[in-house]
């Protein structure tokens, strides 16, 4: 147990942990401790989530009425572009890997740190540099290309700070590559004795799969952005139709990364959910091995489906047919996971703590997001639904309903480990319910709107769409409240929260065997692993009283 912060300087070395091992700004900004870097990431991705959230609220407020009474076309274009860019590149992609993954990957496999601590710190600085460029672009007028930077709009016609925003995304991409590189090497080379591949927690498997995508996909978007920049700034026309270039090539290269990027967002989320479902059902994940392999399968298949973004871009119909078929294949490993999580609940000793609420929410919302994905992978339906609000609703169900639900669930689950403090379960459950209700109210009407033909990316719409848009905006305000609450009570708990035990949930897993918060080098002694992951039958958790129930 750690002592009160003020007395810790006098405490014996066993009482020091990664948080009280140095207090100065320098000890944070030059740290090589993966746990401190995770905290740095936590703060910075929260800032971008806040910025992206404000943009989202502006969009929803404008769409309250059919007319352009808050924003006009040009401003609206810039607002939704900056919403997409900050959310996709600066929140969703780094959120789970760089915050929870950074903190937990070494802890879960029993390592002292990631393989390359300095590169880990470098990756945060790259993220911050990229973020700074993007913020600069935002302040100086933003961009109106959408987050996709399609050519020739981005290379020739777009006004605004395309170069700066693209440079920001380019730099942030290398931060992602370095994180992936670190995870792959750490997982290969630094597992504790006895931690065989098929004893690794599913969180580690899904981060391994994610890292592969980061390594293989991100360089391609980097070089693509470089080519756009060369064309815009230096007139080296690589996608310019006047020189015989092909704008559709840009789309191929862009989606070769940006489709797998969806799996960068959702695979770590699946890893989090596997941990939560097992911990709060007191059972091993049903079909552990197949769930582990499904992560790799999603990563591999994810690279073969990018063409489904281009069914109406003039791509050959034969290519479209093949891409359509391959896209449906992704549903198989995804469905395997959903079924196996559900099967894990069966005859489990299920409890309803906050993280579990988020996990169950994830399963429902991800299922809707995934199934509508199969719908729009179908050629005929996609031609009808392409560039409508149906698409917007679909990818928000996967990215917000999937990734952010899991991110919040994971944050609530590991919060006592990260900070050594507990939050108030009442407010946590209230906010989990608000998020679930608000989310569905925001995005379900958008499925209907899209099906009725409302196109995306316009600031105005036909009057008959107004009722559903009002519902959606109302949902967005509930959702915003649901996101604001954790920011308040989690911050509050860091100072005033009750001290957390080492294993407040009574969960198995190496991260729960060390103290809360963990010491700088994670374990006082390198652990030796003798059991499979989630072995709740044979490993009796040390704390009998479970989780939030102990708070009364």
């Amino acid at each position: 147990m750690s002592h009160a912060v003020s007395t810790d300087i006098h405490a014996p070395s066993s009482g020091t942990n990664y948080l009280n091992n140095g207090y100065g700004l320098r000890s944070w900004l030059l740290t090589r401790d993966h746990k401190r870097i995770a905290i740095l990431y936590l703060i910075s991705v929260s800032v971008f989530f806040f910025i992206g959230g404000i943009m989202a609220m502006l969009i929803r407020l404008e769409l309250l009425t059919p007319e352009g009474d808050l924003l006009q076309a040009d401003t609206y274009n810039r607002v939704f572009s900056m919403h997409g860019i900050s959310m996709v590149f600066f929140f969703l992609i780094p959120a789970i890997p760089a915050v929870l993954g950074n903190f937990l990957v070494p802890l879960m496999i029993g390592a002292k740190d990631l393989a390359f601590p300095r590169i880990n710190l470098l990756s945060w600085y790259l993220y911050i540099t990229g973020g700074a460029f993007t913020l600069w672009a935002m302040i100086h007028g933003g961009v109106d290309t959408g987050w996709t930077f399609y050519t020739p709009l981005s290379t020739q016609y777009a006004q605004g700070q395309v170069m700066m925003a693209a440079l920001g995304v380019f730099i942030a991409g290398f931060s992602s590559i370095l994180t992936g590189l670190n995870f792959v090497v750490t997982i290969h080379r630094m597992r504790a004795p006895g931690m065989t591949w098929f004893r690794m927690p599913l969180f580690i498997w899904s981060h391994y799969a994610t890292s592969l995508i980061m390594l293989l996909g991100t360089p391609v978007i980097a070089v693509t952005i470089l080519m756009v920049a060369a064309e815009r700034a230096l007139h080296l026309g690589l996608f310019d139709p006047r020189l015989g270039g092909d704008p559709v090539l840009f789309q191929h290269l862009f989606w070769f990364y940006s489709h797998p990027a969806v799996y960068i967002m959702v695979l770590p989320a699946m890893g989090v959910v596997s941990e939560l479902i097992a911990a709060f059902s007191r059972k091993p994940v049903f079909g552990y091995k197949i769930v582990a392999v499904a992560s790799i399968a999603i990563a591999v298949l994810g690279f073969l489906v990018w063409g489904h973004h281009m069914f109406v871009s003039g791509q050959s119909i034969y290519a479209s047919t093949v891409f359509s078929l391959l896209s449906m294949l992704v549903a198989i490993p995804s469905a395997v996971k959903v079924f196996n999580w559900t099967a894990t609940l069966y005859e489990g000793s299920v409890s309803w703590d906050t993280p579990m609420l988020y996990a169950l929410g994830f399963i429902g919302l991800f299922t809707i997001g995934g199934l509508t994905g199969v719908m729009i992978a179908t050629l005929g339906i996609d031609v009808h639904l392409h560039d409508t609000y149906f698409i917007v609703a679909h990818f928000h169900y996967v990215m917000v309903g999937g990734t952010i639900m899991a991110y919040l669930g994971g944050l609530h689950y590991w919060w006592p480990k990260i900070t050594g403090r507990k939050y108030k379960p009442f407010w946590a459950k209230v906010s989990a319910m608000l998020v679930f209700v608000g989310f569905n109210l925001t995005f379900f009407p958008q499925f209907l709107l899209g099906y009725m033909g409302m196109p995306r990316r316009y600031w105005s719409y036909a009057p008959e769409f107004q009722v559903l848009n009002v519902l959606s905006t109302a949902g967005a305000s509930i959702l915003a409240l649901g996101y604001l609450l954790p920011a308040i009570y989690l911050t509050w708990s860091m100072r005033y929260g009750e001290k957390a035990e080492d294993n407040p949930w009574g969960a198995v897993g190496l991260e729960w065997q060390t103290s809360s918060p963990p010491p700088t080098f994670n374990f006082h002694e390198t652990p030796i692993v003798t059991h499979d992951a989630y072995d709740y039958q044979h490993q009796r958790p040390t704390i009998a009283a479970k989780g939030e129930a102990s708070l009364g």
Partner: protein
Amino acid sequence: MVNPAPGQASAGVAGHDAHPALQHHFDTLEQQKESSSLGMWMFLVTEVLFFGGLFVTYVLYRLRFPGVFAEASHHLNVPMGALNTAVLICSSLTMALAIYAAQVNKKKAIVPWLIATILLGATFLVIKAFEYKEKFAHHLVPGPNFDLSLFTPDHARPAEMFFSLYFVMTGVHALHMIIGIGLLSWLVVQSRKGRFDSTYYNPLEMTGLYWHFVDIVWIFLFPLLYLLGYHAR
């Protein structure tokens, strides 16, 4: 992070003498070496994909305009490109010899071989700069000053595309060379301090992998850009 960790001290007691280069979070020097080696290979995989985007673009447009690409390639300076190829291959040899010197513990030979590598790399860049200057003089740089009259009318625009590819591909390659020279200079400083010997030469070997990779990229660029129309000259 300056405080020595409790675990670090006990690791030394646990059996092996802690090598000065052993980092705190690794158990053995071998584990550290395997990790950096895997990390470097993974990084090179990302580099292959980075250049891969450019090569895909090249292949696509060359298939679309085979005659134009052959014609435009005649405007590149083959003797200079060939000389640069030779220079780079020699630099890979000197790089390998620097690593070999560390492996056989000839510590005094490391720095000269590294400096030879730096000089050869710099030679490559100087020759490249002369080539770029020649392209500027002949109005072969894409953009408003590109001289369309050098080509038949229907070939002129796609030829501009060829030169766009030429400048982006060789430019990105040259940038990698500059980064490589920076790494080599850092290695010279480290070697002077006597950091490397037969027990520890990870940074030398890793930089070597990077240098050879950059070399190999040029081995592909040279025929694809300079020689593709050479037989029809």
